[in-house]
């Protein structure tokens, strides 16, 4: 069947966006920006690729293309224009070349396969998780949506976030703020949009992992490995759901890059453009995961040397300069824009800042480091019984791995050594997830019965581990203390109240504020700005942004004084100087005590009070 599917989608998106008809504009916009460009490219460059490959690479390539195009055009044009120019360009490009309903070919066939059921079940699990937590938790999504919402309000790409944030400029990986910007401009609220994007990436991540193992071991083992990856180990979901979404999404591109490297080093045909866009995806989201790729490359090269000597390596590596050059060109607009702010992350005060947050880990004993490198989780400091069991399985299956893919054993060894060496660094503890690529494989080498495997999954609802199944049970059964892990529905009611009742030019002092590089606000009050456009009195000094340290410290000082005594006249005067009109205290009271504010009728009037959430107006 041949129809004009792509141009029709572009036209409908433009029409629905123009008429602000949601959620149609959101759904079509998601397709136009995050699937269509890649599908067009892959159909031309790899016409014989299967449906799984087309969809997975289509999503990855589209994301890279959209990020680089949007950023580059945004430097010269208004963002509200760019969001229409890209679909218009796609409309023109897609009209002559894609008159056939090709990408949907094979979906019928796929429906009969196990992979289809794995995907459907994975989607179900992730949807339930989404219903439980409503949006990504943690703080990164808050700070990046502050940036993206600032760009939307300013209608241009800029690194100066004032007056909405104190940063005069910053260096961060571009997709972290471009993706929420695009999502907001196609009709999503940026935080929910990023959540949907994360779940989509997690699903495509399963497919990418399947494709990787398919190339190494063949179909049956790839299916079982994808099954264990999806339900027990998914690092994209694990990191992303707790807020570290740029790092999580970068892992998706790392998996696809592993495929590229595997193909190149095995002398298979690879397309330079597709490979470059995949590698660019890593830079676009976050560079930390590239360390895993580096280790993977070393392992692959070692295996090739053992099996074939040096000659093949020389031929294979000859492709890399071209790929690196294209990646550099794609990164150039962002690098040129933010080059002045790149050194901020390497300032001594920022390195010391991260060290302070890793205080406990720096003092670990060697035995603790060893155990954590093998079985730790990157967040929460858990030694996972699932990883311990998988490591035992790894020892049992080592002879099989040595016969079939010796580089995977080397990868385990290198990953373990690297994790052990970097575990005391605050952010690099995430390297422990490198072994999560191997554990599903070793499980699938030993556990071959599908029905039994499904039964095994049931255990992981109750065993504390990195499995999304346990997360579901955890969010359902307990109310975590200390850190407000869940965003309560009451928060969204407060947001609705603010939208409907509080003037647009208001400014909120929020309970909680970011300290240094972690920059977290556990009250989630920072989300008031991207969700309602009301400004927040927010103190942050992220270690990748240019802040006036004195202003930051002064803001913390005002916050501390108000937290001690809401009637502190001098502090109230300072707040008024900053234009603060309201105080927001979330359900988890941190420094600001609502009881004290309720008593102080001279300075504050409570205008909202529901389910532990408070808004006070400053008189």
């Amino acid at each position: 069947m041949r129809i004009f599917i792509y141009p029709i989608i572009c036209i409908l998106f433009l029409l629905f966006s123009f008429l602000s008809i949601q959620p149609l504009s959101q759904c079509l916009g998601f397709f136009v920006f995050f699937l269509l460009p890649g599908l067009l490219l892959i159909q031309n460059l790899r016409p014989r690729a299967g449906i799984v490959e087309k969809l997975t690479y289509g999503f990855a390539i589209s994301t890279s293309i959209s990020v680089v195009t949007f950023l580059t055009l945004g430097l010269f044009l208004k963002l509200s224009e760019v969001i229409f120019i890209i679909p218009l360009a796609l409309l023109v490009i897609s009209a002559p070349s894609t008159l056939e309903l090709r990408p949907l070919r094979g979906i019928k066939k796929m429906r009969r396969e196990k992979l289809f059921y794995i995907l459907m079940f994975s989607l179900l699990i992730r949807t339930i998780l989404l219903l439980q937590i409503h949006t990504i938790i943690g703080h990164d999504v808050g700070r990046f949506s502050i940036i993206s919402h600032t760009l939307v309000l300013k209608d241009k790409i800029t690194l100066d976030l004032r007056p909405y944030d104190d940063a005069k400029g910053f260096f961060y990986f571009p997709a972290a703020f471009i993706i929420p910007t695009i999502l907001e401009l196609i009709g999503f609220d940026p935080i929910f949009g990023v959540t949907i994007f994360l779940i989509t990436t997690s699903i495509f991540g399963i497919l990418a992992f399947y494709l990787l193992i398919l190339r190494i071991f063949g179909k049956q083992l790839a299916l079982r490995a994808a099954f264990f990856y999806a339900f027990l180990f998914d690092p994209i979901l694990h990191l992303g759901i707790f807020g570290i979404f740029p790092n999580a999404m970068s892992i998706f591109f790392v998996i696809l890059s592993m495929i590229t490297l595997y193909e190149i080093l095995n002398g298979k045909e690879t397309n330079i453009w597709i490979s470059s866009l995949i590698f660019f995806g890593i830079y676009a989201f976050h560079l930390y995961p590239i360390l895993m790729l580096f280790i993977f490359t070393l392992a692959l090269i070692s295996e090739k040397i053992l099996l074939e000597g040096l000659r093949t390596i020389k031929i294979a590596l000859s492709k890399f300069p071209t790929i690196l050059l294209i990646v550099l060109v794609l990164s150039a607009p962002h690098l040129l824009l933010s080059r002045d702010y790149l050194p901020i992350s390497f300032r001594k005060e920022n390195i010391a800042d991260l060290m302070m947050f890793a205080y406990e880990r720096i003092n670990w004993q060697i035995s603790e480091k060893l155990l954590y490198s093998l079985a730790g989780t990157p967040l929460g400091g858990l030694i996972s019984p699932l990883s311990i069991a998988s490591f035992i399985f790894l020892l049992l299956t080592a002879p099989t791995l040595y016969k079939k893919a010796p580089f995977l054993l080397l990868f385990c060894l290198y990953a373990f050594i690297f994790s052990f060496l970097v575990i005391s660094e605050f952010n690099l503890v995430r390297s422990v997830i490198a072994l999560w690529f191997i554990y599903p494989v070793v499980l699938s080498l030993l556990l071959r019965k599908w029905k039994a495997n499904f039964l095994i999954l049931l255990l992981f609802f109750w065993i504390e581990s990195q499995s999304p199944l346990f997360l579901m049970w955890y969010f359902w059964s307990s109310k975590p203390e200390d850190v407000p892990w869940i965003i309560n529905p009451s928060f969204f009611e407060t947001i609705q109240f603010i939208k409907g009742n509080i003037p647009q030019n208001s400014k909120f002092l929020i309970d909680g504020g970011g300290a240094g590089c972690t920059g977290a606000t556990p009250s989630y009050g920072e989300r008031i700005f991207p969700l309602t456009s009301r400004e927040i009195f927010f103190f942050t000094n992220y270690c990748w942004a240019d802040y006036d340290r004195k202003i930051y410290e002064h803001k913390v000082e005002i916050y501390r004084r108000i937290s001690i005594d809401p009637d502190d006249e001098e502090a109230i005067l300072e707040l008024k100087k900053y234009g603060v009109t309201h105080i927001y205290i979330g359900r988890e009271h941190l420094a600001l005590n609502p009881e004290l504010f309720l008593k102080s009728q001279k300075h504050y009037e409570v205008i909202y009070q529901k389910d532990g959430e408070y808004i006070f107006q400053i008189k």
Partner: protein
Amino acid sequence: MGSTSSKLSRWAYFLIAQAVSITLIYLLANLLVHQPTIKLSVNCSMLSRDELSCKFSCNLVPECFGEIDGRIVVLHFNWVAIYDNTTSLRCRANNTFEIDLPRRNYSFKLRAAVYGEEYGISYTTLEC
């Protein structure tokens, strides 16, 4: 014979590759990870307490030479700063700070760092 020598040379290359790989990993890790080498001691004592706040006196002694940049942060709920002060500290001497914190029946975390050519960190809790 030829095949045996070829195998041997491959194993030799392989062993060299292992040595190179592990050295590269070690060098990369060393480049990325900074370890604190300056001893920094922090001692805090409560000076007074009333209905609203607790007043602490904290003394920092970095084991370095001359002067060094330092930062003292008090956090509540793990990440949120309620006190943040960047200043210059005298090495091998008492550097005293007074810190007022709100009464919350909570263990505030005081984290301190010094940084120059080398780094030093320290940690204590303040109950208020």
